[in-house]
C-alpha cells in the first residue's frame, strides 16, 4: 500500500468519455506501462429517516483493490466517522433498512482499466451514476512510500506529465492536513467520496 492521488480529468466539450479513456490509455502504454486487469470503486449512500432528527448519511464503499473490505463513512453533518469492516457489513445495512434507506438513484461508481508502471499503479475510471456518464477520474498510486509529504512532488510531476499542462494538479483536500501521516486505504476512499459528492451535485447528463 502506497500513497494514492485521485484527480479529475475534464472531458472536452465535443468528446466522449470513451475517447478520453482511449487517449490516456495510449499515453500510459507509450510510457511503457502494462495493463493489469480492471478496477471498480462503488459507493451507495443511505439516508437516516427524518424522525431520527438531523439527517445522517452512511456512505458504503467497495474497492476492487481491497476486495474483502467494506468501507463505511458516516456523515453526521458536522464530522465524518469511518469504519472498515468485512464483507458482511453490506448485510447489516439491509437489516438497518427501517432506519436507513438507500438512495438507489445516487449509486455511483468509477470503473475502467488498471495499469502498472514500475512502482506506479494507474487507474482510469469512467464515473457513472445510474448508467449516466459523469466524468473521468484518474487514480495514481506510488507504492513504495506511505507518507504523502515525501512523495507528493513525484506524484505531481507524474500526473502533470500524464494529463498534460492544461490540467491543474493540486494536493487532494483530504490529504492537506495529513501530509505527514501514514497513508491507509481509507484515505483513498475519502478522496473518492469528495469527487463522487461533487459529481452527484452536477445535474447535467452527458452521453458516453
Amino acid at each position, binding site marked *: 500500500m502506497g500513497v494514492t492521488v485521485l484527480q479529475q480529468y475534464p472531458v472536452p466539450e465535443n468528446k466522449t468519455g470513451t475517447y478520453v479513456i482511449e487517449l490516456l490509455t495510449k499515453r500510459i502504454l507509450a510510457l511503457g506501462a502494462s495493463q493489469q486487469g480492471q478496477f471498480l470503486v462503488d459507493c451507495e449512500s443511505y439516508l*437516516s429517516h427524518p424522525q*431520527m432528527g438531523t439527517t*445522517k448519511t*452512511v456512505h458504503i464503499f467497495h474497492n476492487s483493490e481491497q476486495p474483502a473490505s467494506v468501507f*463505511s463513512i*458516516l456523515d*453526521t453533518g458536522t464530522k465524518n*466517522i*469511518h*469504519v*472498515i*469492516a*468485512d464483507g*458482511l*457489513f453490506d*448485510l*447489516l445495512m439491509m*437489516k*438497518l433498512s427501517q*432506519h*436507513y434507506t438507500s438512495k438507489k438513484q445516487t449509486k455511483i461508481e468509477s470503473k475502467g482499466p488498471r495499469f502498472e508502471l514500475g512502482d506506479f499503479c494507474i487507474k482510469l475510471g469512467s464515473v457513472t451514476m445510474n448508467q449516466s456518464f459523469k466524468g473521468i477520474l484518474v487514480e495514481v498510486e506510488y507504492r513504495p512510500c506511505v507518507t504523502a509529504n515525501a512523495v507528493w512532488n513525484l506524484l505531481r510531476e507524474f500526473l502533470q506529465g500524464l494529463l498534460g499542462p492544461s490540467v491543474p494538479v493540486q494536493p487532494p483536500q483530504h490529504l492537506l492536513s495529513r501530509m505527514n501521516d501514514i497513508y491507509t486505504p481509507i484515505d483513498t476512499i475519502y478522496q473518492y467520496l469528495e469527487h463522487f459528492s461533487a459529481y452527484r451535485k452536477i445535474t447535467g447528463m452527458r452521453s458516453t
Partner: protein
Amino acid sequence: MLRVRKALDYRDMPFQLRYIGQPDLGDKNRPTVVRSSLDIACSGMLIDFLNELGCRIEFEYSVKGYMFRKGRMKITVAKVFKISQGSMPPEPISQSYLVELSVLAPQGQDMIADDMRAFADQLRPLVQLDKIDYKRLGHMAGT
C-alpha cells in the same frame, strides 16, 4: 440488537460486531433458541460510529474463561465480570460459571439442535443447560 466484542488479551485484533435478530417465532417445540445472526470484523472507531448511527449502549461486561469445540458446537465456560472503574480489579458478578452452547448454522438447518440437546443432557446434573425463554425473562425484568 448489536453487540461489539473486543479481545482484551489480544488488543490489536479487530473488533467483532454481531447483529442478532429476535428469537424465531414458533420456537416452542424446538430444543434450542434459533436466532439470525451476522458476525462482522470491524476497525477501531466502531463505538463512535454506532453512537452516531443512533445506537445507545445498553450494557457492557467482560467475560473470562474457557472455550471448547465439539464438531460445530461451541461451548464457552466463563465468569462474567463488571467493567472495572479505574485501577480496581474487575469484580465478578457471581462465583458461578456461565456455560453457553451455540452453533452457527445456515438458515433452516435445525437438525443440529437435537445434537445440542443430547450434548447438554450429558452435562447434567453438574450443569443445567436449558433453553432460555426470552419472553419470560423480558417479563421478569419488567415487573
